[in-house]
């Protein structure tokens, strides 16, 4: 605990130990949290944070709801389904303000919009990552069960690279970069963005919210956990602000934390992640209500959710309080002026 005025100054009577469950292994997607640890930001909020990496079979919401961890990073639609399954979890900070999922195909394939998927072999990962695609194609008048064929994709982009499938799912910060790190056997050079055609679900209008910080709803009633949550959200968001302003340092931090992905790949990822967060017009971590509505709309129309979630599913108070706090300290919480940097990908992302 610490008193209100001193929050975030490192003036601590006691330090609270908390754990955060990520969705996947260490990479720039989670740079903000690693930065908050390594740069002593959480420490300033009197927190000792342990970051648990994700694994193939780890579902962050479940780890949170079962009490194995104190906070979790998870995509909104997945977490909402889990909520419907009886997990009392609450979105306390919507970090990513847009979706990073793309459907990528070759430029010469003629697939430029969802309706072009008709009759094609369409890759996706499953695991709940496919709904933007399903909704987007449905919006374009295609029936996913008959108008094209869905294929389970591996982790990698090989199936698209060797032409086995026509379109592949890719995160803009990861697999899309992988395409650009691969060598075109015809030219001996790396593929370029000109070689690729991209469907961006943000543009189609079926994008769904992704990385958010989730807390245990039942424990939020408990004063001290609520207090910890507030500090945790603030610390995390400050971490993200650090990465916005010091992206090269954050790449280094991520690499130091043992990412096996190459430096240029991480730099790309950091840049694109920043692009998913910034600008945050309402302040970082604060829910964009339009996108929330869109996420729920797609989820219900795709029958992912049986019904819209109740109002307890997300709470903006923690993020708003954090933004307030950070703003008062003279920090830029919206990132209006943030600009993409130019990242050169090396072969293999090295």
């Amino acid at each position, binding site marked *: 605990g610490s008193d209100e005025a001193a929050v975030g100054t490192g003036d601590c009577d006691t330090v609270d130990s908390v754990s955060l469950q990520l969705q996947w292994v260490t990479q720039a997607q989670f740079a903000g949290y690693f930065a908050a640890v390594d740069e002593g930001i959480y420490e300033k909020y009197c927190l000792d944070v342990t970051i648990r990496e994700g694994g193939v079979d780890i579902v962050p919401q479940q780890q949170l709801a079962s009490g194995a961890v104190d906070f979790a990073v998870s995509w909104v639609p997945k977490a909402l389904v889990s909520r419907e*399954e009886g997990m009392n979890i609450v979105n306390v900070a919507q970090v990513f303000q847009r979706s990073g999922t793309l459907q990528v195909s070759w430029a010469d394939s003629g697939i430029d919009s969802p309706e072009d998927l008709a009759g094609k072999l369409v890759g996706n990962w499953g695991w709940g990552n496919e709904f933007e695609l399903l909704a987007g194609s449905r919006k374009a008048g295609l029936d996913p069960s008959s108008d094209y064929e869905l294929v*389970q994709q591996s982790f990698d982009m090989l199936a698209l690279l060797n032409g086995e499938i026509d379109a592949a799912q890719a995160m803009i910060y990861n697999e899309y970069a992988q395409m650009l790190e691969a060598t075109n056997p015809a030219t001996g050079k790396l593929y370029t963005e000109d070689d690729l055609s991209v469907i961006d679900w943000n543009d189609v209008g079926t994008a769904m919210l992704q990385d958010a910080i989730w807390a245990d709803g039942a424990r939020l009633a408990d004063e001290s956990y609520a207090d910890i949550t507030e500090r945790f959200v603030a610390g995390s968001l400050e971490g993200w602000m650090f990465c916005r302003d010091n992206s090269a340092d954050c790449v280094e931090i991520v690499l130091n934390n043992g990412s096996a992905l190459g430096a240029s790949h991480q730099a790309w990822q950091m840049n694109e992640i920043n692009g998913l967060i910034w600008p945050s017009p309402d302040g970082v971590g604060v829910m964009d209500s339009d996108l929330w509505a869109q996420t729920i709309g797609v989820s219900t129309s795709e029958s992912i959710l049986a019904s819209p979630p109740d109002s307890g599913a997300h709470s903006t108070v923690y993020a708003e309080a954090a933004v307030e706090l950070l703003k008062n300290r003279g920090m830029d919480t919206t990132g209006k002026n943030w600009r993409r940097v130019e990242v050169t990908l090396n072969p293999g992302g090295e």
Partner: protein
Amino acid sequence: MLVRLRIAAIGLGPALLVGAGGLLLWEGLVRGLGIREFLLPRPTSILGQLIDHWPTLRHAGWETGRIAVSGLMVGVLAGVVLALVTTRFRTLNEGLTPLAVAVNATPIVALAPIFNAWFGITGMLSNQAVVVAVVFFPVFINTARGLTEVHPDEVELMRSYAASEWTILREVRIPNALPFFANALRVVAPLSVIAAIVAEYFGGPQDRIGNVITSNAGFARYDVAWAAIAVASAVGLVLFAVALFVERVSMPWRLVTGNGDSMTTPGRET
């Protein structure tokens, strides 16, 4: 006929009892200890989902079953052939066994991308290849042992007939290896199912058990995932039963009682 049915029923009795008891215990524990259903759903919830999703699950079970069974057959064949070849040609043994171990020490997560790269993700081939890779090793190791661990007297007799190595293989080694092979079948029957499922996480058409499991587990919708697992388990159970059946019909001499087990097998409670 009736007697046979009765015996079969008695044979199945304990399994059914343990199964039913296990389910009851499971249900009771989840209810009694307040285990959250998103961690471990109750059998009754799973049954409910099984009924609700039956058409999807039946289709998925069939597709996955096909991959498992075809991979199982090829894998068993590969294991047996490898065992035959290595016992026949000892030098090959020293070269091939390490290779077999190497393939077997490679987890599916690593095999899947490689096989996907080799055989593509749009058909069943790469998934079947994963099943083969998982299945052949236990078959190979066990069968090879059975082929070599023969009684010297029996080999001597065959030598006295100037029987060729091939004949010795056919007349002595193979019958001797049958129980070892049967043992391997028991081991690989369920492994083939799980290998097929895990392979499906990484590639192939998406109407399979593995995909049902992952897409629901991704949401922590574990009751549906467990319903799919139940279907997979049923496939595994059928394969296990087939393994037992093959064992019985292929070794009739083991059914006759020798003097050692004329009464209840000693060491067992009567």
